[in-house]
């Protein structure tokens, strides 16, 4: 029987239709990474005291200035111009700056630390409303009509924080985790619904079936990686020096590997519940050994070879190279993309072989 793209497409379309209708899974795919990232982000963004805040006072906001100066956690550095402020923020010497001019308040924030940015933005907000209140008290009619506009702008710092180094790897981890679990459960269902047996007695080949799944799932992997990439870069200021498309290509290849791995392992589970039991077995070792949290060099030597067979190790390495160093596809072909490709092919073959037609 020859391979048919048509049949592969039919399976892909069906997988997409099913996932599209499963709102909870869609929610999980899109929002869980955001929640995870925010948790990681807060946990890793350092302590709050000693926030270095620049102040460029062009006049007109005495009350707001007084409020900012009154906050103990802020170390205020008085600057002459906006460009000075920008420069210092991008060098990592300031966490943010407030530019005051009559009728306008501008806030420049270092996007790499959400927590600190939040604290500065909050303080400006409180100061501005106080100023508003005092204006209203002074001249009731005019004060209520004129809102003080606040313009917020993010500046991306160049000093790498913990989140910057971990962020790219977490992008890989999130996609690997959810694709593995969703794929394993999808294949368990194919078995229990009897659809798998029906495929076995149809022109659909095993290769076409797995390929269809890879295609269908890729759409959701893309959606998920795009969301996560957005949160990582815009929410947490992790730099994206290379191309977003290159980063997505790495994640797609990793996702395809996770899918065939999930399909392969579904053969060893009898229920969705048992799939959950794979988490400590399959996912945790990757988290610990892939070099996200500490460098591979610090993994004990006798365990290190194990790190080098895990796909997340290569994905994390490649994503860091793309996002932090601006590497292109050519720079990560060897060993990262090659290793991810080999991993995918091995488990594609294994997953296909496990879908055996004959038993007994």
């Amino acid at each position, binding site marked *: *029987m020859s391979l*048919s793209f*048509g*049949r592969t*497409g*039919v*399976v892909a*379309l*069906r997988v997409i*239709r*099913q996932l599209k*209708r*499963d709102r909870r899974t869609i929610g999980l795919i899109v929002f869980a990474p955001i929640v995870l990232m925010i948790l990681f982000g807060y946990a890793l963004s350092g302590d709050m005291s000693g926030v270095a805040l620049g102040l460029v006072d062009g006049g007109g906001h005495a009350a707001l200035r007084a409020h900012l100066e009154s906050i103990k956690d802020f170390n205020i550095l008085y600057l002459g111009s906006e460009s000075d402020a920008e420069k210092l923020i991008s060098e990592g010497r300031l966490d943010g700056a407030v530019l005051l001019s009559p009728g306008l308040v501008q806030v420049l924030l270092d996007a790499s630390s959400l927590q600190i940015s939040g604290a500065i933005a909050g303080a400006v907000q409180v100061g501005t409303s106080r100023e508003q209140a005092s204006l209203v008290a002074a001249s009731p009619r005019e004060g209520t009509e004129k809102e003080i506009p606040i313009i917020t702008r993010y500046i991306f710092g160049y000093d790498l924080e913990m989140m910057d180094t971990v962020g790219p790897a977490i992008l890989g981890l999130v996609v690997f985790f959810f694709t593995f679990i969703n794929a394993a459960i999808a294949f368990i269902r194919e078995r*229990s*619904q*009897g*659809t798998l*047996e*029906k*495929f*076995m*007695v*149809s*022109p*659909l080949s095993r290769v076409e079936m797995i390929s269809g799944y890879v295609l269908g799932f890729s759409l959701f992997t893309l959606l998920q990686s795009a969301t996560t990439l957005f949160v990582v870069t815009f929410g947490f200021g992790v730099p994206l020096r290379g191309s977003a498309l290159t980063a997505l290509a790495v994640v797609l290849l990793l996702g395809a590997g996770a899918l065939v791995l999930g399909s392969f392992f579904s053969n060893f589970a009898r229920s969705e519940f048992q799939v959950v039991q794979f988490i400590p077995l399959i996912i945790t070792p990757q988290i610990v050994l892939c070099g996200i949290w500490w460098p591979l060099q610090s993994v004990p030597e006798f365990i290190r070879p194990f790190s080098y067979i895990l796909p997340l190790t290569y994905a994390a390495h490649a994503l860091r190279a793309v996002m932090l160093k601006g590497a292109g596809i050519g720079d990560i072909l060897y060993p990262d993309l090659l290793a991810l490709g080999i991993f995918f092919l091995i488990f594609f073959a294994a997953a296909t072989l496990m879908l055996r*037609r*004959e*038993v*007994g």
Partner: protein
Amino acid sequence: MGTQAAISARGVTKSFGRLQVLDNLDLDIPSGVTYCLLGPNGSGKTTFIRAIVRLLRLDGGEMKVLGRPVSEVNEIYSQIGYMTQHKALYPDLTVQENMEFYAGLYGLAKQKRVERIEELLRMVDLLEHRGRLAGALSGGMYQRLSLACTLIHEPELLLLDEPTVGVDPRLRQTFWDYFDRLAGEGKTVLITTHIMDEAEKCQRVGYMRAGRMAAQGSPEEILRLAGLKPVLRLWLAEPEKDAALLRAEGYEIDIDDGVVQVRLESHALIKEILAAVSPLDMRLAEPRLEEAFLRLSEAA
């Protein structure tokens, strides 16, 4: 009825460990018939069907499916429709989407796909429900959708494991009419069921027991083989006297609780009996396949 056998099995054996599930089974199913495979639980019906589509490897014997050795059956999967007891549907797809999926799997062209889906949904009475999620259907509707999906590619050989479970009698009749129509078009329909009434609607019936064919033939042949005849029950004013009269004319008579029962060699004899006696009431009891199989398996 075609000349070539749709399925022919010779000395087919299969065991799981020490359990012999198919024991030297011989079976011929001509093409263009509705064939009903009956038998108690564990008699090997489902194992046999799974062996036909090569989901199981046989230990021994020979089997041909649509003229091909069973080892090559994967080459002709597009000619086989296989409906298992698991309904093989996606509950999170609509009725229409399930149909479209299977139509796509068998490579039906777009126009053909639209026509077939329309025709089959009408046949299984789900046309109005095409937009509903399969998971929201009742058990009977789910079953009907599963059948429609199995028929989508107009298979030459249909293997249906208990297709009418949970289907109401009116629709069941529609199904049987449809199966007869398919057989009329030269297609072969193999059905397993435990409902004897259904078996009587098939052109041919096979009764499996302990991995062997205990009996096979048309329902009439099976009844004859088991020695079963129609029985005319007569309520008579003077049962003893009339019974003696009929016995004298050579009829086989029993009296049960005052009711005279005459075993008929043929239905034509009813007229002669009514000429001899005048019953107050009468009823004709046709022999049941169930009884025939019980008798045959006792004899075996």
